[in-house]
């Protein structure tokens, strides 16, 4: 097991290295005229560094003046030391901006995730139990509609109905203007007013996949021989499903849930942007659209690392949860 984890870690680092190279190469292939134009634009903003300083910073950190291979190793060298340069859009070190924003995203992501799991898994199991019944169809349709919903469209409808027409929730932002002056309950209400719709969006759009996954797995389990054995033992249908079936379905589900935990840090790029929540997603979006090379590169690398970490966790969890794999 330890060997396996070490091996996987090693492999992940290797892949991350190549991903980093590809990201670096993509960034390097951005036309220099573009870089210069953005740098000039940024330099004109009040309180910013000068144009030459920006370009110098880029040259220094990203080795724009050297060959692509050499530049890459130079960059990796600085990255390993935790230096990602200063953000062009935000005018602060990239890592600092990241620290500021990441918790908003994590809060948003984890709350939605918990809600998602606690809805999707029971519904998926219910659908599998009553295969081809009306319940099953309903669950399937809800799941597929969730998968198929354009996130921006759904968010807009939510905004229109609940924010503009009903006035229950706020359109944008994380906290209200008078947040600091509110008491505890008021603060909570204020937060809720801002967070309910983004969370609802993420939950609805994301719930389908897990629901289908649960259903498919449960169906597979229910068709297996040991379920027939459990029935032959005289167990009630409820126990057959909730105990024997569920425990087996849990293996892939725990695996996939564990694998998506790093993703909670990735930030919901579109949702955050749509609802004006200053998490890492929106921050990165603004940075990317604004041509902020240092921040974009950091974000890309961050996401790649999260993905790799996710698969790693999933694989390890699989080995931990499934007794059949545990031994080897």
């Amino acid at each position, binding site marked *: 097991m330890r060997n396996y984890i070490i091996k996987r870690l090693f492999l992940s680092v290797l892949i991350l290295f190549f991903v980093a190279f590809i990201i670096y190469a993509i960034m390097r292939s951005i036309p220099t005229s573009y870089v210069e134009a953005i740098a000039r634009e940024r330099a004109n903003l009040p309180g910013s560094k000068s144009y030459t300083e920006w370009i110098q910073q880029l040259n220094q950190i990203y080795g724009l003046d050297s060959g692509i291979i050499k530049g890459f190793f130079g960059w990796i060298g600085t990255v390993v030391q935790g230096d990602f340069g200063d953000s062009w859009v935000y005018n602060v070190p990239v890592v600092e901006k990241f620290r500021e924003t990441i918790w908003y995203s994590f809060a948003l992501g984890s709350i939605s995730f918990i809600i998602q799991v606690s809805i999707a898994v029971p519904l998926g199991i219910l659908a599998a139990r009553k295969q081809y019944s009306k319940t099953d169809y309903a669950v399937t349709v809800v799941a597929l509609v969730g998968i198929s919903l354009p996130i921006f469209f759904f968010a807009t409808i939510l905004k229109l109905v609940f924010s503009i027409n009903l006035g229950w929730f706020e359109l944008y932002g994380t906290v209200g203007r008078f947040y600091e002056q509110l008491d505890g309950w008021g603060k909570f209400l204020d937060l809720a007013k801002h967070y309910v719709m983004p969370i609802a969006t993420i939950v609805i759009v994301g719930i389908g996949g897990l629901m289908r996954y649960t259903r498919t797995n449960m169906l597979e389990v229910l068709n297996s021989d040991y379920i027939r054995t459990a029935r032959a033992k005289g167990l009630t249908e409820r126990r057959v499903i909730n105990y024997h079936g569920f425990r087996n379905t849990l293996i892939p589900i725990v695996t996939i849930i564990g694998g998506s935990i790093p993703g909670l840090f990735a930030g919901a790029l579109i949702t955050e942007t749509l609802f004006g929540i200053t998490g890492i997603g929106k921050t990165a979006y603004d940075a990317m659209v604004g041509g902020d090379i240092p921040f974009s590169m950091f*974000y890309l690398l961050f996401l790649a690392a999260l993905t790799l970490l996710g698969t790693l966790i999933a694989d390890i969890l699989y080995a931990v949860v499934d007794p059949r794999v545990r031994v080897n």
Partner: protein
Amino acid sequence: MNRKNKNNIHMEDRQGKPVDSMALDDEKRIKILSPGLLVFKRFIRNKLAITGAIFILAMFIFSYFGGWLMPYREDEVFTKYVDMSKVYAAVSENTEYKFITTDNTEFPMIARSQFVLASNNDRNLFESQGVSYSIEKLADELFVVFNTREVAVVSIILGNTNVALSDPSMGPSFIERLEEAVDAGEETFTYNDKKYLLVQGKKNYLAYELEPLALATLNRYDFISADISVSYDFAFAMELAMHELMETGEKSRLITVGGVEYEMEVEEEKASIYLRNNGDRTLYANISRYLVESIYQDVFISIDFKDQVKAMMSEGVEGVQDFVYVNIDGEEEEYTIERNNTEWVIRWIEDTLVIKAYDPPSKEHIMGTDGNGMDILTRLMYGGRISLMIGFIVVVIETMIGIILGGIAGYFGKWVDNLIMRIVDTFNSIPSLPIIIIIGAMMDAQRVDPKIRMIYLMFILAFLGWPGIARMVRGQILSLREQEFMIATEATGLSVSKRIFKHLVPNVIPQLIVISTLSLGGVILTESVLSFLGLGVKFPFASWGNIINAVSNVHVMTNYLFVWIPAGFCILITVLGFNFIGDGLRDAFDPKMKR
């Protein structure tokens, strides 16, 4: 009852077959489902799959045939005439001097303001930009401005008059006239039809030659036609005449300017000038303190209209007042006049040509128009074409890459497999959406042509989407390779290409169809997100995503639902359709699924 009958028939049908002639164990006795029908039947029985198929078919017909049938072009901008209450003219009481210059002269703006200062301070000389000017007051609020040139200095030393000429060309007769004027204490004098000004200094007099430059008056001249402009001589004569008439209380007078005879009639503060011709008189111009100006440069407001307005104003306008003007052709035109502080605003209802922005659904535009005045239905159709096309092209490209790389990995195994799978892992961990956003933003800044942009978009999407397919193909081939029929193909000595194309590929295809169908939906969704963000398909091309983009304006989001709701449903239905079909196909192809 009826039903039962049918059943009976059905039973007879099956039993009526020559069963007896066949042995019990003859397979021909039992009809079975053909392999194609088996899959088809499973698919058909899945209500969701059928719904999905209908959705997709409808969207295809809508996008492709709809686009042909629609009379409008994708980027056709629609306009319309709207009766708009528009400001037609503004009326104000003139409080600023109007300068009527003599021919071929110029009275600079800066000098004009200097004039105002000088006139207020009762100075008759001022300077601007090194040029000297002098003012002669003809009457209250009526001045003549001269170009002034120093011609002589007259110094009186011990009673002796000494003249120093700046211009030697002036003869001795001028000096004589000058001395005469000095002696007489005249401020101005005339010599040789030219006016001269004498200004007394401390010890001497300065003589200036005056050249008339402009007439400064508060009166406004409204002529009968737009072609006529006021000339200095005309204005000079008229102003003097008007002044005199008002002083004397006379009603009218004949004036001749430049050989043309005019008659002036004065009434209160305004005057009408008629052109006299052999005893007939026709209105030529009006003079008044009011300024009636159209806000359109090319519109000339007739003198009658102005008269009518002035008349109304002298009666006093309160609130919004309607009035009717009968024009030369005898048509009635409706106007409203409204006082606005020191101004009066005249509005009229105008048939204006405007872009049909956010036109609600109507007969011509069943779903209304968008902010650019384009027909939303047409845009939706063309947008559908583009979304579907992008979806298909991307999926075809990524499937091809996926098949080739996944196939190679699965078939050859060993280090090739290892290498390709690591590449797949690498590509899998590259965050695709951010990369596309970055490239989109960059293309924005570089102003890449929308068409080329679209091609780039497709390639990027495909390039980032293939790993999933490659992984599936590889897994499938790995498991197929273990099957005994693949070993059999090797044992029978079939060539590698036959083994791959006749045995492996057909068995991968069902899975491939499923995954491609599902990823079609995914690609369309991604494209719409990008277009929504303004980073995908760009104007003038329509895409469902960029149609919804209008909601970034909250006003549009709240008030013009017909602009963005249909596009949203188009995306939803299409993607849902593909997902339903994919899901149905997966069940249909899966031999384990019981139905």
